[in-house]
């Protein structure tokens, strides 16, 4: 296949993924609509808080329909993820030379949403997260739509500074952590909504008990945090050191990655030592996910000097030009350096 064909395949893959996710969303909608008026049977399991979303309802017919459409939703999510993966693969192969499919915002978003779905699929049966399905699929669908509408860019080779295997490592870690934090954020949001809700029926009532939601959110964050640490504070600086000569530049993107790190550190710290479970922890998690997504999208519009400004075509080099232009030969400055150094030695 030629590069152009691969690119077409990638675009078709995105479109197919979008359609299938939409169908999955419909299936989930049918499932939850069927369960809408059915009161939740209280959990009786010892220890309390075990997720009891498995469809056990009085009316057999409703139950079957709900269970069917729930399984269908999951299946469709899986098929969508497959198309999503093909889209990513095509994107990477379409580039000449072949490369990892995260060279610009469009591709990064494509990868990030894929990781969200993949993490969901990987954990759904183990942690009984089937209730998270509609939210995840809805979220991914919206983000993909926005991605295609506003961030689309044709396949292009990477700018020079991005050509490093550290790019692969750094971005993989960042994307995986972003996916985990996003799932954690969604769970925390649901926690807060459920904590306020008093309804006996409907989606919120069918979510796992609050302690279970809290625990699932914690696990997502506990998984994401080390990955984020590795991506942002280890592989990122190593790469920055190779490309720009210093491992930490206080570049706006770095600053916000650091802020995100600090917020999640505070989240874990608060849970571990100050006993902040539940509401406070969920609020902190939402702050964290807000800084994460602001860093991912928002900061690009606030700062033009970011060296991560791959949002626009040749910005990588533009920043290089800017840096050159800021470096006039300043004799006075050199003299100042010398004077200070002499003092230090005296």
């Amino acid at each position, binding site marked *: 296949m030629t590069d152009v064909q691969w690119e077409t395949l990638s675009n078709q893959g995105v479109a197919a993924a979008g359609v299938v996710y939409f169908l999955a969303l419909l299936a989930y909608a049918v499932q939850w609509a069927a369960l809408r008026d059915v009161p939740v049977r209280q959990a009786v399991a010892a220890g309390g808080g075990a997720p009891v979303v498995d469809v056990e309802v009085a009316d057999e017919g409703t139950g079957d329909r709900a269970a069917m459409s729930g399984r269908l939703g999951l299946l469709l999510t899986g098929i969508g993820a497959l198309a999503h993966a093909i889209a990513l693969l095509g994107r990477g192969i379409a580039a000449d030379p072949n490369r990892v499919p995260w060279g610009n915002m469009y591709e990064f978003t494509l990868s990030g949403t894929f990781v969200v779905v993949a993490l969901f699929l990987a954990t759904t049966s183990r942690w009984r997260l089937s209730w998270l399905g509609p939210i995840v699929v809805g979220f991914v669908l919206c983000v993909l739509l926005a991605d295609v509408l506003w961030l689309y860019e044709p396949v292009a080779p990477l700018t020079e500074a991005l050509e490093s295997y550290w790019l692969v490592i750094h971005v993989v870690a960042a994307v995986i952590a972003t996916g985990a934090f996003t799932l954690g954020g969604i769970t925390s949001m649901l926690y807060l909504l459920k904590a306020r809700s008093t309804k006996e029926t409907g989606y919120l009532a069918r979510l796992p008990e609050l302690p279970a939601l809290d625990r699932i959110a914690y696990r997502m964050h506990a998984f994401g945090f080390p990955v984020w640490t590795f991506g942002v504070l280890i592989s990122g600086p190593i790469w920055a050191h190779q490309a720009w000569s210093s491992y930490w530049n206080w570049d706006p993107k770095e600053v916000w990655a650091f802020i995100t790190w600090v917020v999640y550190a505070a989240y874990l710290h608060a849970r571990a030592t100050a006993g902040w479970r539940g509401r406070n922890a969920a609020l902190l998690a939402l702050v964290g996910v807000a800084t994460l997504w602001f860093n991912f999208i928002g900061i690009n519009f606030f700062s033009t000097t970011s060296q991560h400004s791959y949002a626009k075509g040749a910005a990588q080099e533009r920043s290089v030009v800017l840096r050159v232009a800021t470096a006039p030969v300043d*004799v006075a400055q*050199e*003299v100042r*350096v*010398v*004077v200070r*150094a*002499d003092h230090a030695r005296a």
Partner: protein
Amino acid sequence: MAAADRDAPLELSGEDLDGKPVDLADLRGKPVVINVWWSECPPCRVEQPDLNEAAAELGDKVSFLGLNIRDSSAEKGLAFTRNFDVAYPSIYSPDGSALLSFAGTLNPRSIPSTVVLDSQGRVAASVQGRIPTTQTLLSLVDVVLGE
């Protein structure tokens, strides 16, 4: 810097702006004043008349040597020496490699810089940046001459 503390004599040679060989070793026996400059450096342009004055005042007692760095061509340096009537030669070292011989001593660290060598070619004093007045340079040289 007291005579006893000084480092080994400086080894420095190169070509001057006209392409003629210059070797510091040929200037031993007299103190040498080395001035680091380039033509587009404003403080260098301001201090050059002071250096000329000092060179004229000291006459044969002291040798002067310029060290041109950073100028993109020897011609450009020559335009400067012509314009300012510089009477002494300058080694042309656009990449600054000549300055590496000073490593570990009173290393010229800014443009301009002025270094005074004693009669054995050892670094005795240095001024980073523009020399404040002709008199400053003369008194530095006097100390070295008086040894």
